């Protein structure tokens, strides 16, 4: 409201501004122009006084509309283009089409004799290198937290099934021991492009659901920080933190959809006086979660739910807090503070919570895991994150020597280094030949691979896929029109 007045002080005094401003009524600021006639500040009154320059062929129609006369048209504009008169897609429709996840294909052959994934098979050493089908209930849960990605090739097969890799079993075992001891597993999944990092994360989430854990999953790190959700400063925080209520609502919705049974059994142990609705102690968490209907009222409920889930000594299940696309939350976000300064991603409250768990600053009192997967496809370069991961890999003996910190690089970030100083790295490697073989046998059984799966064929695809990179094998075998 004050903007037009303050800008006026920059004007030179002239005859037009000589009228004292205080006399003129100060109205609410409206845009001087709007495409809708009702909102427009000065809707042009229909008048027949519209003038037409002399000698032109233009006509003035009764409504005051001026119809232009004949105009010269250049040759290249004359072609009558085919104008598509069908309805354009509604907002968001194109994106929804692009991002849709198809988990089944009726044209693919059903694979007989596939074992179903359950809590035992995930930690069973005998099941390493076998294909495991995801049970329907689990599929619904995974879908609710958006753990499936549209880039993965679920749409080629009859039923979603996964290769139980060596690393998946190791990860499941780590989660098992962490939950058993009441510890928090702090883990970052790194690895080459298309090597299956998101799939491993999916397996970790599956393990959590199959063992009745609470899962909080952030499917895309970039959605938190790229300025696409609404945000607001949280009062009484120093330095200021920012809430993302719409995103929190989304997380709550997926939580109550995926963990419905569990939430129904869990009862509140704290009174929550700051909530609008009154929930006496002993109310089920599902009821509290259900209270979140609109983004505006979500934030206190989101906090209350997290407070309840991490209540100590109340028989809470372990929690898996996971995120895909780590490098997006390890940088400055696209959001601005009221002073128009760029907000660090760690100042966003949800991200802050995740980072605190990952760094071990706060602990999950009932045990659980905090797992982040890096992504290589479309992620920003993040020198600090890469450095810390390499350091940790060197500590674990996965590589010989970590790269030294570049002395003149200003892009290192201390907060990121602090956040990643206390985690474990799972460096995902390519699959072994026996794993590749069972995967290819599954492809063949689904009718997607028309060659006999023998040692030779496996070896061919294993090499073509860059020494067993699963995504590249898939690309070379299933996604090229060859067979």
């Amino acid at each position, binding site marked *: 409201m004050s903007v037009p007045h303050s800008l006026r002080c920059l004007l030179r005094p002239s005859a037009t501004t000589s009228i004292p401003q205080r006399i003129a009524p100060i109205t609410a600021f409206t845009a001087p122009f709007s495409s809708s006639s009702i909102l427009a500040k000065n809707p042009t009154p229909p008048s027949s006084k519209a003038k037409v320059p002399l000698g032109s062929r233009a006509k003035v129609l009764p409504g005051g509309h001026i119809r232009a006369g004949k105009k010269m048209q250049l040759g290249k504009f004359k072609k009558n283009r085919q104008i598509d008169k069908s309805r354009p897609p509604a907002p968001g429709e194109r994106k929804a089409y692009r991002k849709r996840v198809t988990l089944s294909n009726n044209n693919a052959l059903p694979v007989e004799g596939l074992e179903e994934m359950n809590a035992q098979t995930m930690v069973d050493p005998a099941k390493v290198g076998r294909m495991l089908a995801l049970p329907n209930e689990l599929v619904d849960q995974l879908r609710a937290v958006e753990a499936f990605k549209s880039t993965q090739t679920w749409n080629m097969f009859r039923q979603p099934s996964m290769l139980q890799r060596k690393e998946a079993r190791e990860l499941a075992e780590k989660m098992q021991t962490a939950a058993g001891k009441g510890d928090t597993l702090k883990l970052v999944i790194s690895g*080459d492009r*298309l090597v299956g990092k998101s799939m491993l994360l999916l397996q970790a989430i599956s393990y959590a659901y199959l063992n009745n854990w609470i899962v909080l999953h952030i499917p895309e790190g970039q959605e938190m920080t790229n300025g696409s959700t609404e945000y607001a400063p949280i009062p009484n925080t120093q330095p200021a933190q920012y809430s993302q209520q719409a995103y929190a609502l989304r997380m709550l919705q997926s939580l109550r959809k995926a963990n419905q049974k569990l939430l129904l059994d869990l009862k509140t142990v704290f009174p929550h006086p700051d909530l609008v609705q009154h929930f006496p102690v002993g109310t089920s968490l599902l009821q509290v979660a259900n209270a979140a209907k609109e983004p505006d009222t979500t934030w206190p409920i989101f906090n209350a739910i997290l407070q309840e889930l991490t209540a100590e000594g109340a028989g809470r299940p372990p929690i898996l807090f996971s995120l895909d696309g780590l490098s997006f939350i390890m940088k400055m976000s696209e959001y601005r503070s009221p002073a128009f300064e760029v907000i660090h991603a760690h100042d966003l409250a949800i991200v802050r919570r995740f980072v605190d768990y990952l760094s071990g600053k706060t602990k999950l009192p009932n045990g659980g895991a905090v797992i982040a997967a890096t992504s290589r496809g479309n992620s920003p370069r993040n020198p600090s994150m890469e450095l810390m991961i390499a350091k940790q890999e060197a500590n674990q003996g996965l590589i010989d020597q970590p790269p030294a910190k570049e002395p003149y690089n200003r892009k290192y970030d201390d907060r990121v280094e602090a956040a990643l100083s206390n985690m474990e790295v799972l460096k995902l490697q*390519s699959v072994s030949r026996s794993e590749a073989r069972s995967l290819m046998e599954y492809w063949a059984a689904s009718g997607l691979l028309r060659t006999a799966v023998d*040692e*030779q064929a*496996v*070896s*061919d695809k*294993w*090499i*073509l*896929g*860059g*020494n067993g*990179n699963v995504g*590249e094998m898939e*690309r*070379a075998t299933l996604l*090229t029109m060859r067979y």
Partner: protein
Amino acid sequence: MASLQSGSSALRGCCQVTQTLKRLHRLRAARITVPVGTARHMTSLSDQDPATDGMGIHARAVPVSPSYFSRQPRFNDSYLLLAQLAERYRKLPLIPKDQVQPVAWKNLENFRQAVGEHVKATEFVKCMELVKVLNQIHPSLRPKEVDDALLVFKKAVQPYSNIEKTIPIDKFGRALGTGRRKQSVARAWVVEGTGEMLVNGKTLADAFGRVHDRESATWALRATSRTDKYNVWALVEGGGTTGQAEALTLAIGKALMAHEPALKPALRRAGCVTRDPRKVERKKPGHVKARKMPAWVKR
């Protein structure tokens, strides 16, 4: 001794040349003399016949070659020489055809081009019969003049005498093959193993983004079903991705042949032996590119 048969029966064909000989005798009878050094192919009679020295200079020159006035003097000369040699050495032992070391002979086209005469096909065929018979003379007994006479009919480049360089396998069991395509040069060290491959220290997927290029690079191994038998460590430089991938095909193919020479025909059929000679055609003056001409402009 059955293999060493008498040359007389094989030389029966040479009686056909007697007609030509007779014609040449007639030519010799009509001697003429010209002043010394008038023509390169002519010579005065005095050079040839010292008996006429005192008689002064003859008016007409005598050609050096008796077949000078025939239509194909060079061909006829060599033909006659061959006939004479065949006649002279008819008693030398011949070896069977299948034991003769193969020689790449000029064909009619090549020969015509070499001597610059329009040699008749039928005569050339007959001549070549003589050539082959003479070539059948046992190499240890074959006189040098026969070898010299046959030289005209041999191709300049003798692929059969080419000695192949064999690629050694070093003490670590590696064979180093090199391959080229366009501007790319590839070196591949192939060693018996389990089927792993690194190109410039990267996996195949990292080195080549295109699946087609990866398939080209591994083609030598896949075409011979050897993907799980050898490990490859390769260095490629120069050119683009396609060139690098196809240079690798050749490099791996050659190194593979060092391990298993019997694979050569299979590799040749797969196209992993011959270097593709095509490369960018040079730009020419007056052209916009190699072939493209500037657009026609009126004035």
